[in-house]
């Protein structure tokens, strides 16, 4: 009898060890934007939970969306922007979040949730990771030589003003969903317009910009601005702050500034969601819950210079982040920001076609 018990005990010990070994094998596959996290957060998460983070990055919503629509991405967490998220939810790409596994949801900021509800009603599928604006980054020294600090979209959309920057280099985001609304807004139209004639007008305005643009690209401008290779970029707020930081670190006399133009700017939201075919749903929830801890998301914001949708994290933010109106805009600026909703297939085609015309002249 004793020997039987001993065997049982030994067996259960082996099972327990095997179980632990399995626990060590737990992984979560995260697909996030490039330059968008303090990597020590991933290490801390691994240390605390024993879940290994496989972290991969992208630099365009389109790439992410195509992978998601093809299915079988192998990712457990992805981070699309709001308009893309809305369409992907419609396509049935995501699974609903299990909110019982996300107690830290109570830390989220209602002001932001109210806006993201437009893309994901009730926050059923996603939580906000970061949000920001699409504005203008510039080389401060170069701007002073060319008529002072940048404050208005006219610097980009008035050809005679933009021409002054041509010799030192202009980059523009390769993202029609951001630039067409910016042009519409500058023309005094509804930036979220789906009217094909109005989109044509935006195209005409954007086309005048092209001769002075060196490149349409959505990530190269960070280094290019920081190195002084270019001196004007239409880009995402936090990316330009990263350029500002890298320039300051390099200390080669390059100073980078960011403007939310006085006419207003697009406010966008990057949302964490779990694909329907994710293999590690449990770990994905654990990761999302971890990210919603105030001290964790504050660390991320302090690192990437983007505002987050977590109210409880505010008091843990560095002063230079929280008090920078370009990151956490004041109410007056916030009132001028606008958000957009997804295009349907027909309008999307017109928008892409307009953008190709803008870029290639064809």
């Amino acid at each position, binding site marked *: 009898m004793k020997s039987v018990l001993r065997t049982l005990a030994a067996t259960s010990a082996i099972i327990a060890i095997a179980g632990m070994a399995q626990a060590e094998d737990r992984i979560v596959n995260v697909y996030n934007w490039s330059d968008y996290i303090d990597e020590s957060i991933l290490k801390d998460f691994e240390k605390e939970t024993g879940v290994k983070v496989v972290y991969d990055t992208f630099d*365009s919503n*389109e*790439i992410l*969306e*195509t992978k*998601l*629509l*093809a*299915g079988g991405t192998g990712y457990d967490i992805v981070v699309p922007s709001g308009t893309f998220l809305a*369409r992907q939810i*419609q*396509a*049935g*790409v995501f699974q609903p979040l299990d909110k019982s596994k996300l107690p830290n949801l109570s830390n989220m900021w209602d002001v932001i949730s109210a806006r993201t509800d437009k893309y994901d009603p009730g926050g059923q599928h996603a939580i906000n990771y970061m949000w920001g604006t699409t504005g203008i980054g510039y080389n401060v020294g170069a701007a002073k030589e060319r008529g002072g600090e940048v404050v208005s979209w006219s610097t980009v959309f008035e050809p005679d003003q933009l021409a002054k920057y041509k010799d030192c*280099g202009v980059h523009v985001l390769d993202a*029609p969903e951001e630039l067409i609304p910016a042009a519409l807004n500058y023309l005094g139209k509804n930036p979220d317009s789906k009217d094909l004639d109005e989109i044509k007008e935006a195209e005409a305005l954007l086309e005048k910009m*092209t001769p002075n*643009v*060196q*490149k*349409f690209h959505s990530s190269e401008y960070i280094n290019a601005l920081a*190195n002084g*290779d270019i001196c004007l970029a239409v880009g995402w707020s936090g990316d330009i702050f990263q350029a500002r930081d890298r320039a300051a670190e390099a200390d080669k006399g390059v100073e980078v500034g960011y403007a939310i133009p006085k006419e207003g700017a697009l406010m966008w939201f990057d949302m964490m969601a779990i694909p329907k075919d994710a293999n590690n749903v449990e770990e994905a929830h654990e990761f999302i819950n971890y990210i919603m801890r105030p001290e964790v998301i504050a660390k991320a914001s302090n690192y990437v210079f983007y505002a987050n949708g977590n109210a409880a994290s505010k008091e843990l933010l560095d002063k230079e982040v929280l008090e920078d109106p370009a990151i956490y805009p004041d109410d007056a600026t916030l009132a001028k920001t606008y958000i957009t909703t997804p295009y349907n*297939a027909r309008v*999307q*085609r017109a928008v*892409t*076609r307009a*953008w*190709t015309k803008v*870029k*290639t*002249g*064809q």
Partner: protein
Amino acid sequence: MTGAPTPLQRIVSRATIWVPYLWLLLLFLAPFAMVAKLSLSEPAIAQPPYIPAFFFSDGLADIWAKLQQFSFANYVFITQDSLYWKAYLSSLQIAVISTFLCLLVGYPLAYGMARVPRNWRPTLLMLVVLPFWTSFLIRVYAWIGILKKEGLLNQFLLWLGVIGEPLTILNTSTAVYVGIVYSYLPFMVLPLYANLERQDPTLLEAANDLGCTRMAAFWKITVPLSFSGIVAGSLLVFIPAVGEFVIPSLLGGSDTLMIGRVLFDEFFQNRDWPVSSAVAVILLLILIVPIMLFQRSEARGREAGR
């Protein structure tokens, strides 16, 4: 072994003929059929983002019924917008010029390699292949560092005093040509070298004996004999260059119009897989013509060699 082949030998020899066909079926025709099928479907907001025109599992009768009402709307759409044929033409133009430049650089290189003492050749051959040991992407990225305004090339030229201020090469078509010629040069050099190395040097001696100058002998004997190498090298450069996407997007400017980029936009920006498949099918048809020409010249070459 003068008697008739045994049945087993017959089967084996037939099987060896079928291997390449099986290869063609698996790696070319099957993917092509899938893309062609996709090009007939309709886009949708779904996963995957299209409504299939039919299913291969439908059964022949069903497929036949659906075949009758196929919509070629996606192909019609492509003909209605000048963007597409302009992109095809511009891609062809870039590919033709790049191929010519590769030939211009590659021929002397291959010729030199084929004429140096025999024991040097393996080393030179390895030097041509050596760049493949580094990732293609990294090598193209390296050109950004060379060609940019503060890059190595501009610094060197400024130091020489050839130019007064830095040239803008990066993000222009020139940079695309540099990238393509650099990346595909080995594909030109290797077949040319293989061909030139095989040529019998006694032919040139005979030409000399008959009073031909070395220059004339080169144009009258070496070049015509290397024709199949020129065609092989040119196709190996031309075909991938037409569909090139990475090089123009890294080194080219926004206005470098290439069909690879149009395809990318259709696929990624518009999420219109059906139209992008139609673009791909047409691209394939455009490429098949030179491939068939090549096959014919090969066949002729084999016959002539016999």
